[in-house]
């Protein structure tokens, strides 16, 4: 639905597994978006062929990232590495839930 225009150049990607018990429900989605918005890079999240913007709370909720789901995060832009670091950390910290 939320297709992103990949404007040339390679995007950095990273695989993460959702750790927190309740997955990406509203609050983790909000945290994810707030974190992603701190960076200039375009950020996308993919799960099983479905790809949404990492800056869209509604998009993130629609991918149903349950506990154990593996997601591919990709970032494209000047601060791509920092963005991926921050987002990966958020997932590994279980969105500060458990």
């Amino acid at each position, binding site marked *: *639905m*939320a297709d992103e225009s990949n404007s040339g150049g390679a995007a950095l990607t990273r695989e993460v597994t959702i750790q927190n*018990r*309740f*997955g990406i*429900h*509203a*609050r983790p989605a*909000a945290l994810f*978006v*707030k974190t992603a918005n701190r960076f200039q890079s375009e950020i996308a999240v993919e799960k099983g062929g479905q790809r*949404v*913007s990492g*800056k*869209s*709370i*509604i*998009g993130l*909720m*629609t991918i*149903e990232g*349950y506990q154990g789901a593996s997601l591919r995060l990709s970032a494209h832009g000047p601060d791509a590495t920092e963005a991926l670091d921050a987002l990966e950390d958020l997932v590994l910290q279980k969105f*500060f*839930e*458990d």
Partner: protein
Amino acid sequence: MDIAPPSTNGDELELKGVGVSPGIVSGPAFVLAPEEDAVVVRDITAADVPRELQRYEQALVATRQQIRDLQHRMTESMGKESAEIFEAHLLMLEDRAIYDEIVRMLGTDLKNIEFVLHEVTDRYATALRNLQDEYLSERAVDVRDIARRLLRNLAGRSSSALAEISTPCIIIAHDLSPTETAGLNKAKVLGFATDLGSPTSHTAIMARALGIPAVVGMHDISLRVAAGDPLLVDGQHGLVFVRPAAERIERYARKRRAQSAIRERFNVLRDQPAMTLDGYHLPLAANIELPADVEVAIANGADGVGLFRTEFLFLNNVPTEDEQTEAYLQVARRLAPATAIIRTMDIGGDKFIGHLKMPQQVNPFMGWRAIRFCLAQPEFFKVQLRAILRASTLKNIKIMYPMISNVKEVIEANRLLDEAKNELAGRGVEFDQDIEVGVMIEIPSAALTADLIAPHVRFFSIGTNDLVQYTLAVDRVNELVSNLYEPTHPAIIKLIKHTIDVGHEFGLWTGVCGEMAGNPLLVPLLVGLGVDELSCNAPGVPLVKDVIRSLRFAQAEELGLAALRSGSAEEVLANCRALVGKIAPEILELVE
């Protein structure tokens, strides 16, 4: 479609729903018509795109401001929990994917912004609606709520028909969204009743916070009431009378007089202890659902909080340990030195929480709920235990486990509590080492084995709603059997008495925190059976206190003994009514 009954003969119509915010009000009906969802399609040219986009930007700014205003208003009246609902709304409003898609579609489809906005948001709402997860699926309502606000702002209407209400009235609607409820003008809206909704919906919570009497879950009231129909709403009992009869109005007027007579005594009562005429004192506490409710408890003269139903903190989200600690601390600080009993979450049963991924259960009341749910997920449970411990530094917090059916559960919960204490100690965090732990007695097996449970706890609190339901095998929301729901049934009297006696034998105090504790007619009976503490909904505190202060302990004892000898629920109830009629006739007037 007009299926409202004929109003020519002035016949009274009584409609029943679920009372979610107490109070008695009367006034004319304002029937809220469902909002026109049809959006006009207009062709535009490429040259119009910047102008359409500018209109959209302006609508975004206006909508953001409206949501912020609502958020601000609700935070003041009910704290952070409700504010979070709006925080999610703001993020959805600013959703980048939606924005980008709208900009793209404006340029390619060349249709007016209203149409494009509607198309895009509708697609996202549908995608959410189709999700398996019940909680996420419900968020479609939020997306549509926001889209409607944007469309209103695009049309130059700053708000819904609700804002145009100019004379005091009672709102009748199919449904009210949380933002519509939060935006109600208290000076003009006397009360409301809706077809949809449940006691745990955001709308119900906001109605209580605003102090607007409300009844929800009325099925089809929006089709049965015509604009201007005179209405009488009883928010406590979940009743709406359409074209109320003169006799009905008179009865409620008497009730209101009795209420205001008691309210006049409130100021005096508030600062007086719940003590019988002959000096028998028992703490009278209030039940709360959210931290902000503690203000209502104090305003009604409660001696503390006897039951903090923490599951309401989990309504929208799973709060973090820090967020929970903050919520419990808010209550502890406000009450100190009075105490608060924090009941660990009773999730499941009728409190089905979508985002917690509860499985569908055929019989949730006998299923995976409360302590069963928590013990199955020890790490999740310990987050709450640590948060409660961290809030105990003022030494005015007690912990209570719900739905105990077997002493093994108490032992296991205590073991996890010890782990939680060790984890905190390891982190160097302070807490009350000697925090009191108790259990809810609400399952007959727990009452009957109170002697096995007693060595592991410091108090019992009898949850009468579930105890009656489980003992008599009566689902009281099932109208076919609700007449069998009898709190004065001999079996209930015996279980209560047994629990209290065992408690005393082991040196424990026993409280009652169910609805029985808030029923002024039954309070003398509980006192007579030897109960040590009562906790009821805050608005009931002054009534219960009034009865206790009109009572002699000997009268209560006599009532209790007679109840134990009696074999008839009706006879016990009649005795209770007779006693209250004698010592506090104004109370009888009020509750009958």
